[in-house]
C-alpha cells in the first residue's frame, strides 16, 4: 500500500456560499487519481450530503479523507448539537430541519439514507451537545461482503 493519499478540509457552519466546496475538492482529487466515474459519483454524493449536514446543523467541522489502492475512507466530524435518535434520523423523509433550510432545497430527510445508499460501510457516532462523527468507506476493488 504505497499509494496512500490523505487530506483534510475545514467546514464552517452556516457558510452556505462555500457549502459543497470540500466535496468538490475531494471529487477533484479522485479525478486526478483516475478513480472510476461511478465510484467518484458515489463518494461525491455521500461527502456532499455529510458536508451539507455540518453546514446546516453544526458550528464547525472537518472532513478528512484517506485514499489507498483499495478504498476511499472519509470522516466528517462536527461540533454540533448531536443526533438524539439516529435510527429515526436514518429514516427516509424524517427531518428536523427548519423551514428556511427546506426552502434552500435541503432538510428533506434523505441525507443520511443517501449516504448509506452510496457507500459500502457507514458508521455514525453522536454525542448530544458535543457533536457527530460520520465515517464511510467505498471500495475501489471488489472485496468480500462484510456485515456487522
Amino acid at each position, binding site marked *: 500500500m504505497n499509494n496512500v493519499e490523505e487530506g483534510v478540509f475545514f467546514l464552517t457552519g452556516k457558510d*452556505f*456560499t462555500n*457549502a*459543497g466546496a470540500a*466535496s*468538490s475538492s475531494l*471529487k477533484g482529487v479522485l479525478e486526478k487519481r483516475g478513480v472510476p*466515474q*461511478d465510484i467518484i*459519483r*458515489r463518494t*461525491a*454524493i455521500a*461527502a*456532499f*450530503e455529510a458536508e*451539507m449536514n455540518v453546514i446546516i446543523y453544526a458550528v464547525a467541522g472537518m472532513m478528512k479523507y484517506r485514499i489507498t489502492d483499495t478504498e476511499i475512507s472519509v470522516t466528517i466530524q462536527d461540533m454540533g448539537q*448531536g*443526533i*438524539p*435518535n*439516529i*435510527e429515526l434520523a*436514518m429514516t427516509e423523509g424524517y427531518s428536523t430541519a427548519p423551514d428556511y433550510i*427546506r426552502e*434552500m*432545497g*435541503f432538510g*428533506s*430527510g*434523505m*441525507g443520511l*439514507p*443517501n449516504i*448509506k*445508499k*452510496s*457507500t*459500502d*460501510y*457507514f*458508521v*455514525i*457516532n*453522536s*454525542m*448530544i451537545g458535543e457533536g457527530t462523527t460520520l465515517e464511510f468507506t467505498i471500495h475501489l476493488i471488489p472485496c468480500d*461482503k*462484510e*456485515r*456487522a
Partner: protein
Amino acid sequence: MNLADILAILNARVLTNQVPLQKTVESAYCADLMSDVLSFSVTNSLLVTGLTNAQVIRTAEMAAIEVIIFIQGKRPDSQTIKLAEEKRIPLLATDLSMFDTCGKLYERGLRSQFHHLNQAPIVTVRAQSV
C-alpha cells in the same frame, strides 16, 4: 435529446457563457429538493428545478448532471452562474412553469430512468447515540 431541441421546445435561454452547448441528455429529473436529486438521478441527465442557489450547481456537480433548467422566469445570481461556468454545467432558463416544462419535454420523448443510485451496496450501519 440535445440542448438545441430543449431550447426550442421550452423557448429557453442560455444563462452561462463559454460553456459548451453540444450536449445530449438521456433522462430528466424535476425537483426542488436536492437530496432527492442525489438519490434518484443518473448520469447524462437534465435537472428541472425552481431552486436557484449555489447548492443546485454543487448537486449537479456531485451527481454528474449535464444540464440545469430553471423554470418560471427564475434566475440565479451572478455568483451562481459563475460557479456553473467554472464547473462547465450549462444553465438554461424558461418562463414556463415546472408543470408545463416537464410536460412538454415528456411529450417530445424525454423520460426519467427509474433507477436508484445503486442497486444493492454492501452497507453496514452501526449507530451509537449516547
